[in-house]
């Protein structure tokens, strides 16, 4: 058997894939051929060393993006079964919008929708320069400021409402608010670590929107 054939067998031998008879044949050749003997030694060293290669650390941006995306997709929501949270977001339970709050949410949604479309259109144009990304994120940041103000107003009203309900119900509502505050914080942290990232900003706005919806539902619910 020529060296070329033997060397292919050596590769299989190193992986433990040869039968006894084949091993004997290859061993005999290797013992007589310096070149093939060297290949055997090198393949064995490479194979063993490949099992202990260094590992690398991803940058913090990866986890920031994951956190924001988890919150946005609503994957990491530890909602207990049959909770008020679930019922509040069921279609039959969401009350009619009070005119003032409804208008505010409607306007903010338009801003968010327009900003998202603007972001996607700028992305479709191809690679976006840093200054263009900063420009693209401004409408989202403006929307964030509007959401914060709306939430501040709703927050006060919802706290007053919660104080009027029975303790167990108040505890559930406060737990749900704490959960959504956690996700808002996650998104804020991610936005802080990746400023100018329109994707994370979008997730942050979505988190604000969820909070505003929940607060609005608490304020307007007749069943608490």
């Amino acid at each position, binding site marked *: 058997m*020529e*060296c*070329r054939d033997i*060397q*292919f067998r050596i*590769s*299989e031998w190193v*992986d433990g*894939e040869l039968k006894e008879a084949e091993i004997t044949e290859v061993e005999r050749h290797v013992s007589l051929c310096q*070149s*093939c003997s*060297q*290949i055997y*030694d*090198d*393949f064995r*060293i*490479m*194979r063993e*060393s*490949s*099992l*202990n*290669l*260094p*590992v*690398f*650390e*991803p*940058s913090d*941006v*990866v*986890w920031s*993006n*994951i956190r924001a*995306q*988890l919150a946005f*997709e609503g*994957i*990491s*929501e*530890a*909602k207990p079964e049959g909770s008020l949270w679930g019922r509040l977001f069921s279609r039959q339970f969401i009350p009619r919008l009070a005119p003032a709050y409804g208008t505010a949410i409607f306007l903010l949604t338009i801003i968010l929708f327009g900003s998202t479309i603007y972001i996607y259109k700028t992305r479709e144009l191809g690679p976006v320069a840093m200054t263009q990304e900063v420009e693209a994120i401004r409408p989202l940041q403006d929307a964030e400021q509007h959401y914060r103000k709306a939430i501040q107003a709703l927050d006060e009203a919802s706290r007053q409402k919660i104080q009027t309900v029975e303790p167990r119900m108040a505890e559930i509502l406060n737990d749900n608010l704490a959960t959504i505050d*956690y*996700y808002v914080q*996650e998104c804020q942290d991610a936005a802080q670590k990746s400023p100018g990232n329109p994707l994370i900003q979008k997730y942050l706005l979505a988190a604000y929107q969820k909070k505003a919806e929940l607060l609005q539902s608490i304020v307007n619910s007749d069943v608490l």
Partner: protein
Amino acid sequence: MTESDAISGCIKGDPKAFETLYSLHKRRIYSLCLRMVNKPAEAEDLAQEAFMQLFRKISTFRGEAAFSTWFHRLTVNIVLMHLRKKGLDEISLDQEPGEDEQEHPKKEYGGEDLHLKGSLDRIALGNAIADLPKGYRTILVLHDVEGYEHNEIAEMIGCSIGNSKSQLFKARLKLRSLLAKKTSKPEKKFT
């Protein structure tokens, strides 16, 4: 929090559980992606996608295989799909790179005295793997680094088992050549 607790927590949507699983697996998953695509930014995007797929699909994990095995397989599929979208030539194992004929004379693949001696520096090996052509790098990472068998690789990539073995052999010869070229004298020991 143990990995088992973290898995249960993720299924329930516990944010801390997600963070625990990420901390436990981020280096290996990112390193796998990096070795296969050889571009840090691209590898980070793929690692992010792998973790998002994990969190979306974790409820489907039945425990028949080890969790890390299941997750790594999921990651490999994501990377391979990404490479396919970039172009079939990225992971084609059927081509015969012309440069091979120059590297290895037909009669004797050993050629000149290119043998390595003694121990092999892990960093040098990692750098040499990064310098391999894409097809060779894919097969070598999957087999030698990640430990997949040829029948698994053949299924993942869509080639025959014989093809997988053949390409691995060529990848090893190429890697050996790259490692030997990093030293000025063929007899020099790697440290």
